[in-house]
């Protein structure tokens, strides 16, 4: 490498090593000795990672400003060698988006760790919790910095597993167990697509690498996004069903991303995942892991852009999910579920932002990353705030809260900031990123998507204000709510920090370095028309919510629900998607596939074995029936056999 690297970039392996070693240390050595120490050490380690990530970011920004925004791998080693040109190098890939994600992940993670020290205080399995959190942080960092598809997949699975462990943290609660299983299996199903995509890309990448020559590895992003390679991959032509191979592969890869980012119809696991402890929801199911799908698409964006069609799929599914989830969010009563659907909706935003981007109109790419960046902060904040509330009220139900405004001032304030941020009100972070997303959609000529985006912005403002009003305004509706009090300081610090970030993050000039294509990065700035439309939608939503829920009573809401009638029920039941899944998995797979196979195995295959044994015995009995004890019968067989032998010999000669 021709330019000099700073300490942090030269020792980039530390970004992975710190949380990993801490995970091993905490999990194997410290936890059995002291649960409390485990929590503290884990938190410290993540803070150290965060510090290191900032150092890396600083070095990278300096370097990038000087030499241009290069993508490079400062550290790697061969981990898994499938065959020549198919080796997997574990390493750290540095480019603008990985640095961006590094910062986001370490920041949110360290804050959540800190918050958890308070939130999880006194829980059984305190040490276990932090072990898993550390594992998650490690895996997520590995995912973010993956220099090749395989490391991405590896860490992808690992974040899934740690998410599984954390959703099922309260493992004596059947609902938590079910939710963790569901999350794992649904994302696993999606990962099947990812895996197939890897197989296809690997195979053709291997072929192309052979043509190109040299020692390049087929799985490396740097190789796959090389223009020459992309050209060759695009030229392969039709695979099955007339779909070009590249498009097919990318759609499959996107299936993995869609699973992790909970795009429709693979979204079903995310709302249930709220069974986990709330800080987990904040970290994993709002700020970091779920954006992995977006990140994956962004990472492979040059390929998607080359394919084109795959990107359209991404865009439309994203837009649909954004709307779909937003609508559901309006009807949910569980505060975490509302936030979960809101997450879904916002992820849809990020996805369609990517989907509308193209080589000619690359703004969506930047917008998506920008929204990812801001969303991480305010969504984490929302969750942590919700956690604080739940911690105080001991309930998730918004109708069991109310009037918390005074009892929990800090929580209330930060929650309000976050609500405004997500609603897209100036000067909060969400305003800027949402504006850019909408601008990207409009700019690239996807008017339909733009329309949906605008609509969703309004709905978002509505349902967020709805829970905000329901929880914090009006009077306490239950015993728990009336006895609520503010959370301990250790939980409030992260809230405040995140609140600050939610305010300032929008001013961060991400567009300066996160962009696609060399020369024509979209100018970073506010398009007044779009800003006005977005703000209008947001204010409209908030106003509507105020009108219905501002009083803190439920009467108007119920009247409204009655007015919508059947449509309301359908939405409230989440369009019955869960029921459909349940039907398919339990009824069809278990009853019509698994059980028949088990029966077939016992009855037919094993039955066949037993039957042949029985046949052998029958043959034995049949032979025994010759043994009549009649000596002359034996003699007849003898003489007959002898004559037959003679005839056979004679005949055969």
């Amino acid at each position: 490498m021709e330019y000099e690297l700073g300490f942090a970039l030269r020792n980039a392996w530390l970004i992975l090593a710190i949380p990993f070693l801490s995970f091993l240390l905490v999990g194997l050595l410290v936890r059995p000795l002291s649960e409390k120490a485990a929590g503290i050490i884990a938190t410290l380690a993540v803070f150290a990672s965060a510090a290191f990530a900032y150092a890396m970011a600083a070095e990278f920004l300096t370097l990038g400003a000087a030499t241009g925004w290069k993508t490079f791998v400062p550290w790697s080693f061969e981990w898994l060698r499938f065959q020549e040109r198919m080796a997997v190098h574990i390493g750290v890939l540095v480019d603008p988006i990985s640095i961006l994600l590094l910062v986001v992940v370490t920041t949110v993670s360290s804050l959540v760790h800190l918050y958890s020290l308070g939130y999880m205080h006194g829980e059984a399995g305190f040490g276990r919790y932090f072990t898993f959190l550390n594992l998650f942080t490690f895996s997520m960092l590995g995912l973010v910095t993956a220099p090749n598809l395989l490391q991405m997949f590896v860490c992808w699975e690992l974040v899934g597993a740690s998410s599984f462990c954390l959703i099922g943290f309260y493992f004596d609660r059947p609902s938590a167990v079910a939710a963790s299983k569901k999350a794992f299996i649904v994302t696993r199903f999606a990962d099947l697509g990812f895996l197939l995509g890897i197989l296809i890309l690997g195979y053709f990448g291997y072929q192309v690498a052979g043509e190109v020559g040299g020692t390049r590895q087929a799985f490396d992003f740097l190789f796959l996004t090389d223009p020459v390679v992309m050209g060759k991959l695009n030229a392969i032509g039709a695979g099955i069903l007339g779909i070009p191979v590249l498009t097919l592969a990318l759609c499959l890869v996107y299936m993995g991303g869609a699973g992790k980012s909970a795009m429709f119809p693979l979204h079903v696991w995310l709302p249930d995942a709220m069974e986990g402890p709330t800080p987990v929801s904040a970290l994993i199911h709002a700020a970091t892991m779920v954006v992995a799908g977006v990140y994956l698409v962004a990472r492979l964006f040059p390929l998607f852009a080359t394919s084109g069609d795959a990107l359209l799929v991404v865009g439309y599914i994203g837009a649909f999910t954004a709307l779909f989830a937003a609508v559901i969010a309006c009807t949910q009563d569980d505060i975490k579920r509302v936030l979960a659907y809101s997450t879904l909706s916002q992820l849809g935003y990020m996805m369609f932002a990517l989907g509308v981007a193209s080589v000619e109109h690359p703004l969506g790419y930047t917008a998506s990353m920008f929204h990812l960046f801001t969303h991480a902060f305010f969504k984490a904040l929302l969750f942590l705030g919700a956690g604080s509330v739940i911690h105080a009220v001991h309930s998730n139900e918004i109708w069991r809260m109310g009037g918390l405004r005074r009892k929990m001032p800090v929580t209330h304030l930060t929650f309000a900031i976050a609500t405004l941020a997500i609603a897209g009100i100036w000067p909060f972070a969400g305003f800027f990123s949402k504006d850019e997303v909408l601008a990207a959609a409009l700019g690239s000529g996807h008017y339909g998507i733009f329309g949906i985006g605008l609509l969703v912005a309004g709905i978002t403002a509505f349902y967020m204000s709805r829970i905000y009003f329901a929880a914090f305004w009006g009077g306490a509706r239950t015993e728990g709510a009336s006895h609520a009090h503010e959370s301990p300081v250790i939980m409030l610090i992260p809230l405040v920090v995140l609140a600050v970030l939610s305010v300032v993050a929008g001013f961060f000039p991400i567009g300066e370095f996160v962009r696609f294509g060399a020369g024509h990065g979209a100018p970073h700035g506010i398009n007044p028309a779009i800003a006005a439309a977005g703000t209008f939608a947001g204010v409209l939503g908030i106003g509507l919510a105020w009108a219905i829920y501002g009083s803190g009573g439920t009467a108007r809401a119920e009247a409204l629900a009655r007015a919508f009638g059947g449509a309301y029920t359908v939405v409230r039941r989440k369009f019955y998607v869960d029921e459909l899944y349940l039907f398919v998995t339990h009824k069809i797979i278990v009853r019509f596939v698994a059980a028949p196979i088990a029966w077939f195995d016992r009855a037919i295959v094993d039955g066949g074995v037993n039957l042949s044994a029985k046949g052998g015995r029958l043959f034995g009995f049949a032979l025994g029936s010759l043994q009549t004890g009649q000596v002359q019968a034996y003699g007849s067989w003898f003489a007959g056999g002898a004559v037959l032998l003679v005839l056979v010999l004679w005949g055969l000669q």
Partner: protein
Amino acid sequence: MLMLPELIVVVTAFALLVVDLLVSERRKPILPMIALAGIAAALVAAWMLPQSGQLLGGRFAVDSVSRWFRIIFLIAGGLTIAVSADSLNGRGAFRPAALSSRAEFCLILLFNLAGMLFLAGARDLVTLYVSLELATIPLFLLAAWRRDVESSEAGLKYVILGALGSAFLLYGLGVLYGLTGEMRLEAMSGALRAGPAFWLGVGMVVAGVGFKLTLVPFHLWAADVYQGAPTQVTAYLSVASKGAGLALLFHVLYRILAPLAPHWDGVIAVLAALTMTVGNFAAIVQKNIKRLMAFSAISQAGYLLLGFLGHDGAPGRGVAAMLFYLLVYVVTNLAAFAVIIWYSGETGREKIEDYRGLSKTHPLMALAMMVALFGLAGIPPLAGFVGKFFLFSVASKAGLHWLVGLAAINSTVSLYYYLGIVRRMYIEPAGAEDRAVRVSPMLATVLAITTLASVILGVVPVFFETISFQTADWLKGTLW
């Protein structure tokens, strides 16, 4: 000198008669020991004598194959006397299983043994026929020796079917004589030409041999006779008599029919396939252990037959494998029979289920039995595996892969019923009435020797190598 082993056996037999008259009743247990000593001496003689040579102008000859047959016969005979000694001396707790008239029993057994020895050395039709009858007719008497209903019924069946078989053999030999005008095997071999009458002769001779060897479909007598005869005799029948049949078949195929060798592979293969399959499948439904061993012995004859395959290239290989397996089979089968003789001699029980819990009451006996049964099934590292493998390799060399497959599958089937016994012994608990019974030193010695041998023969190569080397020597000359 070449006839020394035979002479020793005959002389021992006569000596028994004399001693029987001279010693008191109390001292008579010495008689089986004398017989045993005689056989041992003959064994030494057979081992020490030159590997080839002839007497009486070529009417009696020894070559390496005959020599090994003689050694195996002597081992079989010796072990039979050894395992019978207790019952002959009336030691068993179960009185009806005892054998009377020990001097006469030993005498007849020794004469019979001498018949087999002569059979191995015979080189003309007359000697062949007479020694074969000497090796057969006394067995009818032995089968009926216990003189109870079952034993005499076994004798009756044996004598009638034996006579039928003998008549067929005789007629066939007559036809072969007619085709050549010669009595000496070598001369016959030179003069034989294939033709309808030739096939008539061969077919009838093979049927006669098949009776002795219990080849399917000439095997039906075996189960009833084995079951009815005194167990000691059953043991002897299953090894020695079968060995004699093999020696006879060897004479017929390699000495008389040698020039026509390429013709017989198919027939031998079919007979072998039938024999092992029928024997094994009939065995799996048996409840009486002697009857089971009868069918097991039938199937073993099928394996032994494989040694006659593979005419082109190296017939000696097959012979070596056959001789080796015969030796292994003799040792292993007698080990199994030693346990059966002991158990039925002490308790009078012969059902397979009577063996339940034997590993608890008599761990070592159960172990010996298990080793023997596994040896018969061909489980490594026991000699049975090695021997069978060599025989299979003969069939494979002959290109009869299907037969190898069938034989190997049959081995597995046989394991089913052998394991049935093992299951009774090891897995099922002993009944309340099952108590420990005596084990005599003689029996223990026999079992120790045979069990050890059935391992050593498989692991230490020198035995097979010697047989193989010597039979290869035999090949280097003519087929003589």
